[in-house]
C-alpha cells in the first residue's frame, strides 16, 4: 500500500542522527515517534495509574466494610485532618476518581494506546504508524490530562465528587474541583481521538501486500472498530464537556433548569435541560463500553487460537459480530436512562436495540467455545487469563441482559447489581484480557518471558478473588443496596449487609495482593526473565516474524502475506502452525 512513505518518515525520525547526547535520548525514549516505544510508554504509564486507581478502590472498600474507622497507613497520610477517617465528601472523591482513572487512564489507553500502538503496525506489516508525530502527541497529551486529574483531587474544599458520570446540576453547582476534572477529561479525549485517527489510517492504508481485510488478526479488527467508535463518539463527549465547562465558568445554562437552589441563593437564570447531558454523555459512554472491550475480545481470540492450536472458529461471523456491536453500540445509550425521566415509550425502543446488541455478543461467546472445542490446549498463564476472560464475560453478559429490561431497572438501577455487572465486564473481562495480552506479548516486547509459575499463581488468586469480590455484589443489588453511599448502614434495611461487605473487602484485598505478584513478575522479568526467540509460542501473525524486541522500522524487508493468521494444525502439514509470512 503506502509503504513508499515509510522511508521518508524514517529519516525524519531522529534515530539515524547518531546515538548519544541529550537530544538523541529525548527523541528516542521520551518524545519518541516509534510506535513501539510509544506503546511501551502507554503500557508503563497505565500500569502505574492502575496502581493509583486500585488503591482508590481499596479505600472505597475500606469505608464500606468499616465505616468511619481509621484507615491504616493511608488514612494517616491522606486524611490527617479528620484523624485518619474518610470524610463523606472525600468518599465521593474516591469513587469518582477510581472510575475516572480506571476508565480514561487505564482501560482505554492500555488497550488502544499500549497494545494498539505496539501491535497494529507489526500485525499489518507496516514499518510504523501513519502519523508518528500525532502518535507521540497523543501519548504526551495524557500527562496534562492526568496532571489535571491529580491536581483536582487536592483543590481545597473537596475534589471532583460528582461521580464519573458528572451529572449536572450537581457537577455545575457544587464542587470547586469539577472544572479541572473536566479539563483533564477534555485532554484525554483529544489524546484518544488523535490515536484513533492514526490507527484507522494505518490499518486501512498501510497493510502489507496480501494482508486483505479478512486476513487481519482479530486483534487488528478489534482495534480498528474501537478506533472508529472513538473517532465518531468522542467529539460528542468533547462538545458536551465544553458545554458543561461553560455552564460552570461562564454561567450559561445548557444543562440547568431555572430557579435552582444553589449555595449562593436561588439561581434565576435557566431554561436548560439536565437530561440533555445524560443523552450526550451516554451517546459517548455507551460506545466507550465497547471501546473498553472490543480490543480485548480481539486479543483474546488470537491467544485462544494460538494456545488451542486451532483456527478461530467462525472468523467471519466473529468480524461481523464486532461490526454489529459497533454499529448498534450507537443506538443503545438510552438503556442507561430508563428511569431518568426520559420518555417511557423511548425506553421500549432502547430496550429492543439493547436486546439486539446482546445477540452478537452471544455469538462471539459461542464461537470462542467452539474455538476451544477439540483443541490441544496449552495452559499457559496467557491462556488461563484468556479463558478467565471468556467465563467472566459470560457472567457479565448475562447480567447485562437482565439489566436491559426496563422494569428490572426500576429495582436495580444505581444499586450494586450494576456495580457487579460492569466490574465483571471491565475487570473480569477487559483487565483479564489485558493480563493475557501482557503474558502473551511480553516476550515480543522485551525479548524475555515472564515467569509462568508466578503467572499461574497470579491467575489463580485473581480469578477466585474477582469472583468473591464481585459476585456477592449482585446480592447486594438485589436488596436495593445503592451505589455511592458513604455509609449505607444509616438505613435500617441495609444494616444486616455489613458482614457481606466485609467479606467483599477481604476478597478485594486478596485481589490487590495478587496484583503485587503480577508487578513483581513484570518488573522482575524485564531484567531477569528467560531470554527468548522471535516466535516462542509458534504463532502465525506477522509480529512473530521479526526479532524480539523488533528493531526500529520493524521489518528488514517487505513482508508478504500469504494466508489468514489462524492456520494452526492444518491437516497434511508436519508443523502445527503455518505463519502468514511463509509461502
Amino acid at each position, binding site marked *: 500500500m503506502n509503504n513508499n512513505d515509510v522511508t521518508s518518515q524514517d529519516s525524519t525520525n531522529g534515530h539515524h542522527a547518531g546515538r548519544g547526547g541529550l537530544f538523541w535520548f529525548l527523541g528516542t525514549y521520551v518524545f519518541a515517534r516509534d510506535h513501539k516505544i510509544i506503546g511501551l510508554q502507554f503500557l508503563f504509564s497505565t500500569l502505574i495509574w492502575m496502581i493509583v486507581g486500585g488503591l482508590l478502590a481499596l479505600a472505597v472498600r475500606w469505608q464500606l466494610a468499616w465505616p468511619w474507622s481509621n484507615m491504616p497507613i493511608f488514612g494517616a497520610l491522606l486524611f490527617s485532618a479528620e484523624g485518619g477517617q474518610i470524610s463523606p465528601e472525600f468518599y465521593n472523591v474516591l469513587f469518582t476518581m477510581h472510575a475516572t482513572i480506571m476508565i480514561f487512564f487505564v482501560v482505554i489507553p492500555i488497550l488502544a494506546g499500549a497494545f494498539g500502538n505496539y501491535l497494529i503496525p507489526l500485525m499489518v506489516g507496516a514499518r510504523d504508524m501513519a502519523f508518528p508525530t500525532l502518535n507521540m502527541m497523543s501519548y504526551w497529551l495524557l500527562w496534562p490530562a492526568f496532571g489535571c486529574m491529580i491536581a483536582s483531587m487536592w483543590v481545597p474544599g473537596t475534589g471532583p465528587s460528582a461521580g464519573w458520570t458528572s451529572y449536572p446540576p450537581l457537577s455545575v453547582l*457544587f464542587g470547586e474541583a469539577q472544572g479541572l476534572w473536566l479539563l483533564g477529561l477534555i485532554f484525554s479525549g483529544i489524546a484518544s481521538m488523535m490515536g484513533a485517527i492514526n490507527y484507522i489510517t494505518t490499518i486501512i492504508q498501510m497493510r502489507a501486500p496480501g494482508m486483505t481485510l479478512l486476513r487481519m488478526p482479530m486483534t487488528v479488527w478489534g482495534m480498528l472498530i474501537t478506533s472508529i467508535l472513538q473517532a465518531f463518539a468522542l467529539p460528542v463527549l468533547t462538545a458536551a464537556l465544553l458545554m458543561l465547562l461553560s455552564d460552570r465558568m461562564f454561567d450559561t445554562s445548557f444543562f440547568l433548569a431555572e430557579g435552582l437552589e444553589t449555595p449562593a441563593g436561588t439561581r434565576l437564570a435557566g431554561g436548560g435541560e439536565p437530561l440533555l447531558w445524560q443523552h450526550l454523555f451516554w451517546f459517548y459512554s455507551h460506545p466507550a463500553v465497547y471501546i473498553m472491550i472490543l480490543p480485548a475480545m480481539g486479543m483474546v481470540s488470537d491467544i485462544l487460537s494460538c494456545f488451542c*492450536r486451532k*483456527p478461530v472458529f467462525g472468523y467471519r461471523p466473529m468480524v461481523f459480530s464486532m461490526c454489529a456491536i459497533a454499529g448498534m453500540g450507537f443506538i443503545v445509550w438510552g438503556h442507561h436512562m430508563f428511569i431518568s*425521566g426520559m420518555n417511557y415509550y423511548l425506553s421500549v425502543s432502547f430496550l429492543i436495540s439493547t436486546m439486539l446488541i*446482546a445477540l452478537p455478543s452471544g455469538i462471539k461467546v459461542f464461537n470462542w467455545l467452539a474455538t476451544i472445542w477439540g*483443541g490441544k490446549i496449552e495452559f499457559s498463564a496467557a491462556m488461563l487469563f484468556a479463558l478467565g476472560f471468556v467465563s467472566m464475560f459470560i457472567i457479565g453478559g448475562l447480567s447485562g441482559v437482565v439489566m436491559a429490561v426496563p422494569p428490572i431497572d426500576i*429495582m436495580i438501577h444505581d444499586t450494586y447489581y450494576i456495580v457487579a455487572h460492569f466490574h465483571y465486564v471491565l475487570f473480569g473481562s477487559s483487565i483479564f484480557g489485558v493480563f493475557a495480552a501482557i503474558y502473551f506479548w511480553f516476550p515480543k516486547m522485551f525479548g524475555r518471558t515472564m515467569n509462568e509459575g508466578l503467572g499461574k499463581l497470579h491467575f489463580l488468586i485473581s480469578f477466585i478473588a474477582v469472583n468473591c469480590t464481585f459476585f456477592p455484589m449482585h446480592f447486594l443489588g438485589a436488596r436495593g443496596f445503592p451505589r455511592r453511599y458513604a455509609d449505607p448502614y444509616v438505613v435500617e434495611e441495609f444494616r444486616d449487609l455489613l458482614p457481606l461487605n466485609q467479606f467483599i473487602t477481604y476478597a478485594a484485598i486478596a485481589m490487590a495482593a495478587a496484583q503485587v505478584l503480577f508487578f513483581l513478575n513484570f518488573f522482575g522479568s524485564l531484567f531477569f526473565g528467560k531470554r527468548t526467540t522471535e516466535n516462542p509460542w509458534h504463532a502465525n501473525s506477522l509480529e512473530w516474524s521479526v526479532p524480539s524486541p523488533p528493531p526500529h522500522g520493524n521489518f528488514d524487508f517487505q513482508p508478504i502475506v500469504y494466508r489468514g493468521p489462524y492456520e494452526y494444525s492444518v491437516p497434511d502439514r508436519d508443523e502445527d502452525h503455518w505463519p502468514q509470512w511463509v509461502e
Partner: protein
Amino acid sequence: MAAFNIWPLQGLWLPDNYSETGRTIDHLWTLLHTICAVIFLVTGIVLAWALWRAGTGLNKATYFTHNTRLEIIWSIIPGGILVFIAIYQMQSWNENKLLHPKELVNGVSVSRPPLVRVVARRFSWEFHYPGSDEKLETIDDLYFENEMVLPYGEDVVLQLESRDVIHSFFVPKLRVKQDIIPGHAQMIWFQATQEAEVALVCAELCGWGHYAMQGRIKFVSRAEFDSWLTKQMELKSLSQKGSAASKGGLVQTSLETVSINESGQ
C-alpha cells in the same frame, strides 16, 4: 429460587414486596435469572468439557474453521429468547410507568391526581399534603419532612419535584424508583398491599450527604389516613392561631401523631 432461603444466602435476594405492580417486577426477575442460570450452566459445562477433553492427551488439535449451520442455530435460539424477553416485559413496564391510574369523576374516567407532592432537596425529603381545599400547591398545604403517611389498598399517585440537583425516589420494598430532574414534575404511582413501614432512599448521587438522604413511609388504612390528615389540619390551624401572624406559612408536624391517633381510636 428456593436456594435463597438457605443460609448463607438467606436475605440476599429481593426484599419483601408490598406493592401490586411490584409483583410483575419480581416475576420478571425470577424468570430472567432462571434463564440466565440455565444459559450459564450450559455454557459452563461446554467450556469445562472442552477443557477436560483437551487434558486427555490429543496428538493434534482437530482442524475445523467454521460451520454455518451452527452459527445460524446459535443466532436464532438466543435471538428468539431475547425477542421473547423484550415482548414479555412490556406489560410490567406499562403498569409501572405508562398506565397512569384512572379514577371516575362524575362518570368520566380521568387521571388520578397526585395525593402528595414530594419535594427533594439536598439532603431531605419534603412531603406536601393538600389542606382543607383538597388542592396541592396552595397556602393551606400541610408539610412534613422525611416522614410520609399513605393509605394502602388503593392507587397512590405522587408528584415528584427537585429544588436543586437530580435526586431519585427509591423505595426498595415498593419496587419504585424514579429520578427527579429539576425543572420536571414527575408522576409515579403504586398500590401498597398492606400496613407497613418502608424506607425511602435517594438513588442518584446528590452530594456529600447523599447516603443520609432517607425517609420513612408508613402505610395505614384509608380510614386511619383520613382521620390522621384531618387531625393534622386541625393541629395546623391551632398552631397558626396560637402563633398568630408571627409564623404563618408552612407548619411542620410530626409523624408521631399517627400513633396518638391510632391509640385514640
